């Protein structure tokens, strides 16, 4: 009987591990189950098929390069080295790399992040910020030497008035790209110097576009206080960044087009509004003016201006004749004034003549005055019957016994008629007759 060799435990495990060396680099496909992750970052899980399962360890040194997240139920192809864990004797696969079965790893990572962010509501239309009416100060997060910025500048080139463009330079591929893009978005969002942020990159492979599928970028885009437009890759490329951004443009050129069009649309609309206002108001003013003219030309109102014109003409005529009159007067007075020198000199002589004439008139007056007759001894008899003294010219005018008054040269006599004789009219007293008194 050959007694079996007795190993120590560690001897045996070492021996078997040596034998397992031919499984030093194998690949196994199975479904993930019992996934856990240690605080240090090592991943522990099992893979199984319908009949069996085995343990897998993915140490942090290898897990670091993983794009996607290992989850229970995931179909994986695990590549690594088969070994027995010496301390516990567990049979396990030490994974050097892990890949999803079917899909590519990047594709899987994309789907996983997309699903997660969708569940969080990061793609919801409700949380998208509206673009400003006219984005004028534009920030572009992109590579300053890439194709994207060239395309953008080409589109803006000929219609660039009234826009300012500031490029935030970042790497758009490679391991640091995602962090740079996220940092740029954080800064721009804090500064608030721009109306809109364009996040752009030209076309490339899924690997090239990868930074725009990383969670840190997605989070930064979602957190931006400034509206974002994402234009990454070609039309068929869809990135997480596209999904989170407020607007997705199919290409960088299209993103620039959106910005330009917004501005020219606003311009057009302002111009249209002004034309419209002008048209309406001018139309109304024209109507009023027309109506007014119509009213003014109608007979009722037409009278008024005509009457005013007539009055004005009359006034004018009067004013003219007044002027003429005044001028005539003035001319006359002026002429008189000019002629003054001579008449003034003649004036004393004229007074002398007048005084002489006056003396003549006085003498005549004296000759005919009744007083001068009285002084020659004649008297005048007046009737006293009436209120006024009336000279008695006829003896028939008085009755006997009637009081009469006789005016002498000096003083008066109050008499009574004693008797009277009728007679013919006296002849101027003859010398031989006494005056009958």
């Amino acid at each position, binding site marked *: 009987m050959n007694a079996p060799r007795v190993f120590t435990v560690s001897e045996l495990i070492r021996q078997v591990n040596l034998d397992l060396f031919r499984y030093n680099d194998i690949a196994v496909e199975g479904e993930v189950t019992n996934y856990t992750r240690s605080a240090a970052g090592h991943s522990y899980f099992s893979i199984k098929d319908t009949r069996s399962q085995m343990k897998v360890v993915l140490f942090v040194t290898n897990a670091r390069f993983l794009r996607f997240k290992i989850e229970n139920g995931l179909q994986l192809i695990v590549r690594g080295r088969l070994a027995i864990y010496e301390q516990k004797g567990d049979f396990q696969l030490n994974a050097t790399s892990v890949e999803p079965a079917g899909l590519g790893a990047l594709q899987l990572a994309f789907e996983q992040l997309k699903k997660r962010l969708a569940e969080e509501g990061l793609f919801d239309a409700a949380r998208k910020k509206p673009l*400003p*009416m*006219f984005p*004028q*100060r534009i*920030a572009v997060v992109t590579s*300053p030497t890439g194709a994207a910025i*060239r395309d953008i*500048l*080409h589109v*803006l*080139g*000929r219609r*660039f*008035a*009234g*826009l*300012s*463009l*500031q*490029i*935030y*330079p970042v790497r758009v591929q490679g391991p640091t790209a995602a962090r740079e893009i996220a*940092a*740029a978005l954080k*800064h*721009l969002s*804090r*500064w*608030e*110097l*721009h*109306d809109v942020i364009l996040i752009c990159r030209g076309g490339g492979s899924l690997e090239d576009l990868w930074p725009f599928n990383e969670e840190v970028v997605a989070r930064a885009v979602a957190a931006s206080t*400034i509206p974002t437009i994402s234009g990454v890759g070609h039309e068929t490329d869809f990135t997480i960044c596209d999904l989170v951004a407020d607007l997705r443009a199919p290409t960088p050129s299209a993103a620039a087009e959106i910005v330009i069009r917004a*501005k020219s649309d*606003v*311009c057009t*609309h*302002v*111009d249209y*509004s*002004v034309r*419209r*206002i*002008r048209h*309406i*108001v001018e139309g*109304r*003013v024209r109507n*009023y003016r027309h109506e007014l003219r119509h009213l003014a030309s109608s007979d009722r109102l037409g009278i008024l201006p005509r009457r005013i014109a007539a009055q004005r003409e009359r006034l004018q005529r009067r004013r003219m004749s007044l002027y003429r009159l005044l001028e005539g007067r003035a001319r006359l007075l002026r002429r008189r004034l000019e002629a003054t020198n001579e008449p003034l000199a003649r004036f004393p002589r004229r007074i002398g003549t007048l005084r002489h004439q006056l003396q003549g008139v006085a003498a005549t007056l004296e000759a005919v005055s009744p007083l001068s007759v009285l002084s020659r001894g004649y008297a005048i008899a007046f009737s006293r019957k009436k209120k006024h003294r009336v000279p008695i010219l006829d003896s028939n005018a008085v009755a006997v016994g009637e009081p009469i008054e006789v005016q002498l040269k000096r003083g008066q006599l109050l008499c009574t008629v004693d008797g009277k004789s009728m007679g013919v009219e006296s002849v101027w007293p003859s010398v031989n007759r006494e005056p009958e008194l």
Partner: protein
Amino acid sequence: MAARTRTNEFEKSFQQLEKIVQRLEGEELPLDESLQLFEEGIRLSRFCHQRLEEVEKKIELILADAKGQPKVEPFEDAPVDDGEDEDDDLELDSE
């Protein structure tokens, strides 16, 4: 905040202009009121145009300095400036 305020101001003027057009189109307003609206509309449109054109055309680089403050630098190789094509197009456009 400056960018946002500017934008808000513009959008308010723009909406006011819109409202004026609607009022003038919709109602039979007294003449002097519509003339007032007209003047206001012209003023608003001037303001809008001024705002639309007041930003100087420029291309620059902007990045954060060590303290996280914005630092603006010239963008040297702007391909827009090399383009004689663009100039030609401009002339054609304006004809």
